[in-house]
């Protein structure tokens, strides 16, 4: 009896120890990750780095056009996806009466979310660049990123619509509003936070993507602001990729860290905005 208690006690001690150790290892690794990005990145960043074009294949100069290119691509992608996401969730919420179609749409969106990012790149290469013969184009990149953002944005919007209390609709209907008036005055304003949150989360993910755009939308050097829809741009992720492949060169590596830090800050910025939008707009919507 006494032995059993002791065994149990020892087990409990081990359990607590193992838990604590794993948490420390995880925390250590993750802090190391963030720490190295920040420490190495800060060293590389200066005003010059932010506002100068890249020179000598990225070894010197800055990342001005890369930041511009990245922002251009994801913002256009967001502009493309938002109307589509609103329409799709509106269809599902207000117009679709067939559960089979709803199920199909839902599963398709989840499948879209599951497709590895490199596959989007290949799809873009086949469908747009070769089949539609657009050539390497930043706008094609935007379209591909928009497709990648579609599931997140749509699901977030739809969930916000579903979460609207039924009593709002009942009251609006009791006031004699027609269905389209209800959509305009109740559904859309009340699900606005879902649209914003969803697209911000989508943006945060899209801006860090390399694999989908590296074949179809970007060039490494010699690009500035695109003058038409079918020109390549340079982006932060693809820039880091090129620099990382020259990792034996300390100058290139340093600039890669700098670009990484900027990219991480942009991603975190969008994520924080999404968090903020969720708490702020949800609160306002319910008042």
């Amino acid at each position, binding site marked *: 009896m006494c032995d059993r208690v002791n065994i149990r006690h020892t087990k409990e001690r081990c359990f607590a120890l193992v838990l604590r150790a794993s948490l420390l290892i995880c925390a250590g690794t993750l802090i190391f990750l963030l720490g*190295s990005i920040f420490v190495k990145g800060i060293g590389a960043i200066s005003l010059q780095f932010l506002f100068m074009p890249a020179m000598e294949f990225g070894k010197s100069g800055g990342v001005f056009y890369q930041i511009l290119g990245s922002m251009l691509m994801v913002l256009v992608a967001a502009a493309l996806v938002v109307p589509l996401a609103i329409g*799709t969730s509106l269809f599902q919420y207000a117009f679709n009466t067939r559960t089979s179609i709803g199920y199909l749409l839902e599963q398709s*969106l989840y499948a879209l979310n599951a497709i*590895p990012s490199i596959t989007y790149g290949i799809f873009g*290469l086949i469908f747009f660049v070769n089949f539609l013969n657009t050539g390497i184009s930043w706008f094609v990149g935007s379209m591909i990123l928009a497709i990648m953002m579609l599931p997140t944005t749509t699901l977030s919007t739809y969930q916000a619509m579903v979460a609207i209390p039924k009593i709002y609709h009942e009251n609006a209907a009791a006031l004699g509003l027609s*269905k389209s008036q209800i959509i305009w005055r109740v559904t859309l304003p009340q699900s606005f936070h879902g649209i914003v949150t969803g697209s911000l989360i989508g943006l945060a993910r899209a801006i860090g*993507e390399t694999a989908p755009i590296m074949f179809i939308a970007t060039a490494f050097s010699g690009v500035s602001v695109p003058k038409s829809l079918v020109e390549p741009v340079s982006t932060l992720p693809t820039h880091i990729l090129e620099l*990382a*492949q020259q*990792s034996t060169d300390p100058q290139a590596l340093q600039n890669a860290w700098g670009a990484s830090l900027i990219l991480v800050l942009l991603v975190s910025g969008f994520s924080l905005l999404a968090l903020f939008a969720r708490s702020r707009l949800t609160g306002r919507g319910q008042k």
Partner: protein
Amino acid sequence: MSRSLSPTWPNRIFGKLKGLQIYALISAALSLSIVLTIIVTLFVQSGPVLLAENSGLMSTSWNPDKGQFGVLPMLFGSVFVMIIAVSVAFPLGLLAAVYIAETRSSRLRRLIKFFLEMLVGIPSIVYGLIGVAHLNIWVADIFDLQSGRVILTAGILLGIMILPTFLTLTEDAISAIPTKFRENAKSLGLYRHEVFFSVILPQAKTGIAGAGLLALGRALGETMAVMLVIGSLDRLPSPLFNPLSSGQTITSKLGREVAESAFGSVHFSALVFMSLILVSITVILTITSRYLFRKTPENV
């Protein structure tokens, strides 16, 4: 998502609302057709290599010049890297998640969750940079290798990448179990490990499995980080399970070679075919994991 029209709305009033309805219909049709187009495109473009004679798809040698397109080394590489990643991330993530979920300080918990969510968002290319700048050098030093760009490096890096995702989802699954179960079990004089293994784990296991499958899907589909550190060698390692040999995964292969292959060639088609295999696996994993999440205790 299958929810139809709210019953308070009159069923069929056309006329004025036509504009909105058409817009919604077109959007939904477009969304669906995008998914269909992707699938069809992948199938059609996989055609040439499937129809080509002696392409040796299921062989172990990849040599485009000789028309040999064996995908086995890449498939093996993907699975091998995934196994290493999983054996790094799952035990660590599970135990740390237990610690976080069972801590009684909600402030600590929120702080950790916030950091994890930030980490989930770090782009894979940045992980790749960390891989080439630190990890591959450490691996080379520890195992006395000429180059640290080996399967082990890719596996560990991938493990670190999926750790935040797995950790945060697992933690959700564990803390979704109501406190009353913990209190009741503890009132019976059970130790924490006994409470966990006999009461919490049986209830949280479907959620944890879902988290695991989702993380597996991520691991399989990850390109940039793996591509930079795996060494890109299109052969099976020898001996087979040697993690210190260079290798190739499906994704790293695609990332390296798609731009080099001519569109419409059998070579290109072989690459698309590999991508199709990858998509099938990750989609199945994700849909299964969603099914598991839905089966969490509250819904049974």
